[in-house]
């Protein structure tokens, strides 16, 4: 819309030049208020008390979308996942400490290292089944997408197990002489990442959390049972998947775990897109 002057506006309204001049004179003569600097200072002073306090970096972080999303999901996730994970890992840690004979000196593989990936994988496998039926409704009711929501939940469960695992490792290093923290952490972190990725992918691909956790669990148990079999049949050595706990394959395990998560989220996105189109 073109900005008009009063004169243009009045001309449009069929005011005569004399009338235009009259109106303009009238408006020009209108009394103006007096600007009192004292009042202006008083206003400024009153406003200062209402000035928002500058946010600290921590406050900005807390108010950010990722933190808010994670916080919202903590309260929604099944309480049993937290409780079962904490209980099993705590018991595993106690058992490891109570049975030093089961942990030969010099090794970096403990009972605790065997339990951490297992617990995490089972917890992760349950994530999708909880919301799979209401994913579209959740998407419609919130500003987030299904894959992002599931990624937030995965982050929480994985993060919880990771924290527990780190704390447990510190305790083990404290009690067992000659054990280094970094190799100990890597001994469970690499298989945990892979098994979580696998369980997560399978839970979405099959839409069956029991099957997903069962396959991951079986894979890990078979590996644990057969990993120390020397001179076994070649096929048995293959079934044992020795790479799951070999230090040299840890980077590959972590990478493939991350890729499985990415593939699972992509799969979910494709599925939701198809469902949306059907509606």
């Amino acid at each position: 819309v073109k900005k008009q002057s009063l004169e243009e506006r009045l001309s449009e309204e069929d005011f005569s030049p004399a009338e235009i001049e009259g109106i303009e004179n009238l408006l020009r003569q209108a009394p103006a208020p007096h600007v009192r600097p004292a009042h202006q200072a008083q206003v400024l002073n009153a406003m200062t008390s209402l000035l928002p306090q500058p946010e600290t970096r921590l406050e900005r972080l807390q108010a950010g979308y990722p933190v808010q999303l994670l916080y919202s999901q903590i309260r929604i996730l099944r309480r049993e996942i937290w409780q079962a994970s904490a209980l099993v890992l705590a018991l595993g840690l106690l058992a490891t400490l109570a049975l030093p004979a089961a942990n030969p000196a010099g090794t970096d593989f403990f009972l605790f290292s065997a339990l951490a990936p297992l617990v995490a994988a089972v917890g992760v496998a349950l994530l999708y089944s909880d919301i799979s039926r209401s994913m579209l409704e959740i998407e419609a009711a919130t500003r987030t997408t299904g894959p992002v929501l599931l990624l937030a939940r995965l982050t929480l469960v994985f993060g919880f197990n990771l924290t527990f695992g780190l704390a447990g490792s510190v305790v083990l290093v404290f009690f067992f002489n000659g054990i280094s923290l970094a190799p100990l952490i890597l001994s469970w972190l690499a298989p945990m990442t892979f098994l979580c990725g696998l369980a997560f992918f399978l839970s979405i691909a099959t839409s069956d959390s029991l099957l997903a956790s069962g396959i991951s669990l079986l894979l890990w148990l078979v590996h644990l049972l057969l990993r120390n079999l020397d001179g076994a049949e070649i096929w048995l050595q293959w079934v044992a998947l020795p790479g799951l706990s070999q230090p040299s394959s840890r980077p590959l395990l972590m990478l493939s775990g991350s890729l499985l998560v990415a593939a699972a989220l992509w799969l979910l996105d494709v599925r939701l897109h198809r469902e949306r189109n059907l509606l």
Partner: protein
Amino acid sequence: MGSDETLAAGVQQGNQASMQALVERYYEPLLRFSFWLSGGNQAQAEDMVQETFLRMMRGIGGYDPARPFKPWLYAIAEHIAFNQVQQAKARPLLDLPDETAYPDHFPQPEEQAERGEARQFVVTELGQLPLRQREVIELFYYEDLPQKEIAEILGIPLGTVKSRLSFGLKQLRARMEVKR
């Protein structure tokens, strides 16, 4: 000094200099706007300006810096002015400033006498206009705002702004003709 929107964003972050700059920029125009709508009452206009700025501070968190600041601020001012004027039953414009309150500002008695009559006439004429027409004329002429922005400030369609402006100006013309 940045744009209004940048300064408002600064206020949101708790920047005192931005707040000061906005007050310096808008104190006088808002005072004029309030003065005009309050019927030339200096004290009431000052109260309205103070209330406008305080409400601005309380609501600054909800302001979106991607949108123009001026209509947002004037919408607050207009809301306050309209409520106050309505409450005071649109006090007649003859309620001129209490000159004894600001003795240093007002002209000397001789000068005042010369100007008094003319001003009284203007004040009376403008005061006869309905408040809704008065505010549109004020924003259009004194605040030099485009009609589209006036529509945003008042929360009315552009066509309504045009018609109020038209009726207001025609009414002024009619009153001037009667005077003659």
